[in-house]
C-alpha cells in the first residue's frame, strides 16, 4: 500500500479482508456446530448412560430417568461451554467489559438471560433429547427449521416487513422440516409397540430445538446490538448455568424425585466427561465464530452459511458414527438449507453499508 492509496482502493481492500474473514468465521461456525452433534450423541453411549437398556433403571419410571439424564447432560454441556468462554474472554482481556455488562444486568444482561431460557432449557435440552433417542442427524436436521420461528417473531413482535423472497425461503424451510420430521414415519414409529416409551420425547426435543433457538435469537438480538459479542455469549451461558444448577436440578429432584444428583456424580467419570468437554468446546467456539461473522458479512449471510452445519452434521454422523440417515431426512436437510439461503443470503447486498435490512 503506497502513501497515495486512493480512498476507493483502500475501501475495496478493507472490504475484501472483511468479507474473507466473515466467510471464514461463518464456515468455522458451521463446522463446529455440525461437530457438536457427534460428542452430543456419543455421550449417550458413555457410562452411566451407555449401560442402560430401556427401562433405564429397572423398576423406576423410564420417562423420569430419561429426562433426568437429559437434564444432567445439558447441565454439564452448559458448564463446559461457560468454562471455555471464560477462558476465551480472559485471553482477549475482556473481563472488564464482562463486569460492566453484568453490572448493567437490569437493562442489558436480562435480555441475554431471557434468551438463555429459550436457548438452554428448551433448545439445547431438546437437542440432547433428540440426540439421545433418535440420533445426531435428526437432532441437527430438526433445528434447521429455526429461521421460520425467528421470522415469525420478527413479523409479529418487531413488525418487520417480510419480503416475497423471504416467504419463498420460509415455505421451503417448512417443506424441508416436514421431510425431516416425516409425520407418516413418525406416527408409524410411535405406534410400534416395540418402540421405547420415551420415543415421543425425541421428536418433541427436535421441535424444542427449532422453537427455542428461533425465539432466543429474536430476544437476545436487542442486547447484542449494544454488547461485545464475546461478552454477550458469555453472559448468556452464565444465565444458562445458573438455570440448571440453581433452579432446574434441585427443583426437578425435589418435585419429581428424579435421580439428578446420583446421575450428576455418576456422570463425573472420564469417559463421559471427554465427550462433554468436546461438546463444550465445539459449542462455545461455534457461538463465538457465529457472532464474529455477522458484522463482517451481515447477519443474513452469516446465518445462511451457518445453516451448512445441517448437511455437515449429517456427513459427520455418517463418517464418525456410521449408518446413513433415511432419504427423506437428507432431502429435507437439502431443501431447508436451500430455503435458508433464499431467505437470508441475498439480504443486505450492500455489505459495506448497513447489513440490517429490518
Amino acid at each position: 500500500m503506497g502513501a497515495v492509496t486512493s480512498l476507493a482502493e483502500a475501501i475495496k481492500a478493507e472490504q475484501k479482508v472483511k468479507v474473507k474473514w466473515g466467510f471464514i468465521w461463518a464456515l468455522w461456525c458451521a463446522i463446529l456446530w455440525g461437530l457438536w452433534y457427534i460428542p452430543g450423541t456419543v455421550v449417550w453411549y458413555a457410562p452411566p448412560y451407555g449401560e442402560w437398556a430401556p427401562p433405564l433403571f429397572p423398576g423406576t419410571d423410564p420417562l423420569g430417568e430419561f429426562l433426568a439424564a437429559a437434564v444432567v447432560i445439558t447441565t454439564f454441556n452448559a458448564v463446559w461451554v461457560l468454562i471455555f468462554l471464560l477462558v476465551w474472554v480472559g485471553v482477549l482481556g475482556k473481563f472488564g467489559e464482562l463486569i460492566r455488562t453484568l453490572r448493567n444486568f437490569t437493562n442489558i444482561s436480562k435480555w441475554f438471560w431471557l434468551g438463555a431460557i429459550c436457548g438452554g432449557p428448551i433448545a439445547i435440552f431438546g437437542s440432547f433429547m433428540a440426540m439421545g433417542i433418535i440420533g445426531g442427524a435428526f437432532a441437527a436436521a430438526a433445528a434447521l427449521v429455526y429461521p421460520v420461528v425467528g421470522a415469525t417473531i420478527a413479523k409479529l413482535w418487531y413488525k418487520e416487513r417480510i419480503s416475497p423472497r423471504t416467504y419463498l425461503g420460509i415455505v421451503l424451510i417448512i417443506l424441508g422440516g416436514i421431510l425431516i420430521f416425516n409425520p407418516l414415519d413418525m406416527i408409524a414409529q410411535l405406534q410400534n409397540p416395540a418402540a421405547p416409551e420415551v420415543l415421543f420425547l425425541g421428536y418433541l426435543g427436535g421441535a424444542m430445538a427449532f422453537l427455542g433457538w428461533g425465539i432466543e435469537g429474536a430476544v437476545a438480538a436487542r442486547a447484542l446490538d449494544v454488547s461485545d459479542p464475546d461478552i454477550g455469549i458469555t453472559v448468556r451461558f452464565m444465565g444458562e448455568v445458573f438455570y440448571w444448577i440453581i433452579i432446574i436440578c434441585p427443583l426437578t429432584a425435589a418435585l419429581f424425585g428424579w435421580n439428578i444428583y446420583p446421575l450428576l456424580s455418576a456422570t463425573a467419570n472420564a469417559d463421559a466427561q471427554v465427550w462433554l468437554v468436546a461438546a463444550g468446546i465445539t459449542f462455545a467456539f461455534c457461538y463465538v465464530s457465529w457472532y464474529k461473522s455477522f458484522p463482517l458479512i451481515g447477519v443474513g449471510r452469516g446465518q445462511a452459511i451457518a445453516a451448512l452445519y445441517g448437511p455437515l452434521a449429517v456427513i459427520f454422523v455418517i463418517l464418525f458414527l456410521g449408518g446413513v440417515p433415511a432419504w427423506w431426512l437428507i432431502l429435507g436437510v437439502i431443501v431447508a438449507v436451500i430455503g435458508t439461503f433464499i431467505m437470508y443470503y441475498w439480504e443486505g447486498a450492500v455489505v459495506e453499508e448497513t447489513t440490517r435490512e429490518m
Partner: protein
Amino acid sequence: MAARTKNPTEMPIKCRVLQLLDEKGAMWDYELWETISKEYGISGDYWKSQVKLLLIELASGGLTSSVEQKVDDGTYFGEGAVLYKYQIEDFGRERAQQVCML
C-alpha cells in the same frame, strides 16, 4: 436523551460510544478511540483494533452509519486503513434508550 449521572465508564463500551455520538454529533473513529481509550484506560494496537471492530459492528447493525471516509496516512490506525466518521441513527438511539437506558 437525559444526561446520565452514573460514571460513563461503568457502561459497556458500545453504550458509551452511542452516548458520545448522541451528545457530540458525528465523530471520526480516531476521535472516538481517543476518548474511549482515555476513559477506559486502554491502549496499544490490540485495543485500537478491538475498538475499531466494535465501531464496525455498530455500523453493520444499523445503529450508526458512516457519513465520511478518508485514508489513514499512518497517523491513527495504520497507513492505508480506512477512517470512518460515524453518526448515530434513530435505530441506535432507540436501542440506546431501551437497552443502555440512556
